[in-house]
């Protein structure tokens, strides 16, 4: 039995601690935010925040999340109270299929928390360089992150 703190709630799940965190989040806790992409730490689709840091949930064992605070896309904001990044992604229409969107937003959320002041285009591109998007929405994603950073989410 693992006690996990996810999106502000503590839940117990009956699962092997070696299970990759992504499967517990998606299949046990029925969260949709983190997406399974490569499963090899190469694409970023599965990104979540663990104690505020961006972590690839396909690589983390569920057991290692015990005692830490996990946040997924669902925990970031809601349509009523969107996180500035969520509002900015809508405003910039920064998605096509949207499969990579979770990773883009979660990676950027960690960045905004760490370095809110000095955000320029080059930094955004560098930090997101290992988050892949096959639809080619990178220019829009950069615009959305900069929009959120500049405090004009919507």
């Amino acid at each position: 039995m693992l006690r996990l703190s996810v999106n502000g709630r503590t839940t117990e799940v009956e699962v092997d601690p070696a299970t990759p965190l992504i499967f517990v989040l998606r299949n046990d806790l029925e969260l949709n935010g983190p997406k399974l992409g490569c499963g090899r730490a190469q694409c970023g689709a599965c990104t979540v925040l663990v104690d505020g840091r961006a972590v690839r949930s396909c690589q983390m064992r569920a057991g290692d999340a015990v005692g830490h605070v996990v946040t997924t896309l669902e925990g970031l904001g809601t349509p009523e109270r969107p996180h500035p990044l969520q509002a900015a992604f809508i405003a910039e229409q920064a998605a096509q299929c949207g499969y990579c969107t979770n990773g883009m937003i979660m990676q950027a959320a960690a960045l905004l928390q760490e370095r809110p002041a000095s955000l320029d285009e080059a930094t955004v591109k560098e930090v997101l360089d290992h988050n892949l998007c096959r639809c080619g929405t990178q220019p829009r994603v950069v615009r959305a992150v900069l929009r959120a950073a500049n405090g004009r989410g919507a």
Partner: protein
Amino acid sequence: MGAEMPSRRAFLGAFAAGTAGLAIGFRWQEAAGQAAPAPVTPMLRSNPRLDSWVRITPDGRIVVLTGRVELGQGVLTAMRQIAAEELDVAPERIELISGDTAQTANEGVTAGSQSIRFGGEALGVACADARATLLGVAATQWSMERAALGVRDGVIEGLGGRRMTYAEAASHVSLVRPVDTTARRKPPMAATLIGTSMPRTDIPAKVFGRQVFIHDMRPEGLLFGAVARPPGYAAKLVSLDMDWARGLPGVVAVVRDGSFLGVVARREEQANDAARKIVAAARWQDGAALFGGKTAFDHLLTAPAETRTIHTTEAGPAGARSHRAEYRRGFQAHASIGASCALARWDDGRLTVWSHTQGPFPLRGDLARGLRMQPDAIRVIHAQGSGCYGHNGADDVALDAALLARAVPGKPVRVHWTHEEEMVWEPWGSAMVVRLEAGLGADGGLASWAHDVWSFPHSTRPGGSSGCNLRSAWYLENPVPPPRATDGALPNGAAARNAVPIYAVPGQKVTTHFHAEMPVRTSALRTLGGYFNVVAAEMFMDECAALAGQDPVAYRLRHLRDPRLVAVLQRAVALSGWQPRPVTLGRGRAQGTELVGTGVGLSKYKNSDSHVAVVARVAVDVGSGAVRVQRMWAATEAGRAVNPDGIANQIEGGMVQSASWTLMEEGRWDGRRMTSEDYHAYPIIGFGQVPAIESVLIDRPDLPALGVGEGSQGPTGAAIANAILDATGRHVPEVPFTPERVLAALRA
């Protein structure tokens, strides 16, 4: 769980988005009033029933149906716009049903940039017909002229404040009848929704982590399936200890049918682990080596092929000299971020499959043949997946899910391929060789043009009349092999898509050398052969321009007769600040340790669709041969723009993807199978390499809407290729333009 597992609930009422930031659009100045009546769109001929497009329910719901499916291209937003426009209802009031074999029109596959052009036109006419019919009811009841009535958000309004809802009007007339194909859509100038950048209706759900994808569907009692793939395409299963396999953790069922082997387990990671262990424990017998050990290009050029000359025009005076060149591209993958996924459930011999296929009806036909059952015992319902960019594993995984779910009747089984599985087992985009030969007149002008293309198939999709194009069917005890692959005929073409020159030149000849047999299975990758035919032909144009000592843009303009192509070319060139100059062969343009150049690419997709011109500026590192695309400019004209921001998203996304194909993408294989199985072995473009892009749209509301989903791939690759030629003065004939290849050309 009922058959309905709504995944789109969350989308309704999700229109609170802000304005979309888009590029510059300008309206064509001399846009004329009324467009000529278009011929009946083929979609209405094959799906004539009005109620397969629009239904008004007695309780006032407005249900719009489309056979087209959302692939992340925003098509459902555009369809909603079209329906809301023609019906005069608020877009958010429309309930949209898409791609369900039990409900919607059979529109074949959502592919080839045809959704808006054909499917959107059909929907528009059907909705215009419905509106006119309902107005007619009110006009009769109130004894008023139809022209005196108006509609506001689904309520008909007449003189003296009379009002009648659509639902009430619909109760007096039958909408269950064929569409009146003479119904007139609103004149473009009266449109208030079409032509605006209405925000995408699916994006809010995607940024808030709502259930959107099949991957997110969790019906009661869900089990997980995984396929234990053979170690090579031709390998056969010899033996497996089934009892051992059944005892693996979490395993509920093991399915063995010929060389098809898979498991159903209680948890997703258990299914994946079990499949991995089973692959290793099973005994397999290897098949013959791929390509008999040759390169794919040698195979294409030397193995027996069907050679056909498919296009010729009358010869003109012979040229004073000739130029010829060869270009090659390797296998390229769809490489979707999320691998293919499907959910299947059997109930009393009937099968329901949720799939992100591009063609629910074609998939149903192939599932029926693969499973040896009647198509009407199968229902395929579309739900979204990760972007596919053509025929990836989406259809195949549906059969996998059906085969595995058959072992656990009444239980839903979800199969989500691994990324490695997708890369190794999906159909790849074909390797191609193109040879071009032109005669040049004394003034340097083109006097003849011959385009030869060697290729494997570009469409082996489900949807034929025999056989089964779902991969696992070939491995069954009683296999259902695929039908023999064919090449698509002109004017659209498949291997020869866009091989017919857009330039006015006498003595044209296009010849295909088609390989129906494919050691590596190939199928539709966005644009089919179009991308590479445009890249090759446009590189060749620049070489001809260089031989003629002329500026590449001026050289193109002197051979162009199509004013729409001239318009986009001039617009892109102006945007980029193009400096006219001849390309100098054999000499680079040095700037420090880099060579810097600018190139242009132009195409009219399928010779009948969107017009796109791209200019690219690149820097080539002299020491490493690495190419960096610094900036790209594009101009697009696709007739009437239904949703300008949607077009910009498609065009710009296509440019990024094409830059990735052109600079870095190439599949590799060993004796048994493709080995480019992850993003290390098959890298795709990252943020660091994505250049700044400026794109403009030329709106022509006076002309029918054209497809844009594939318009920018060819010209982007061509512009990058020509920028490399300009920077280096060297011919680099093979895509992708990897540092090694560019360096080899520099040192040659």
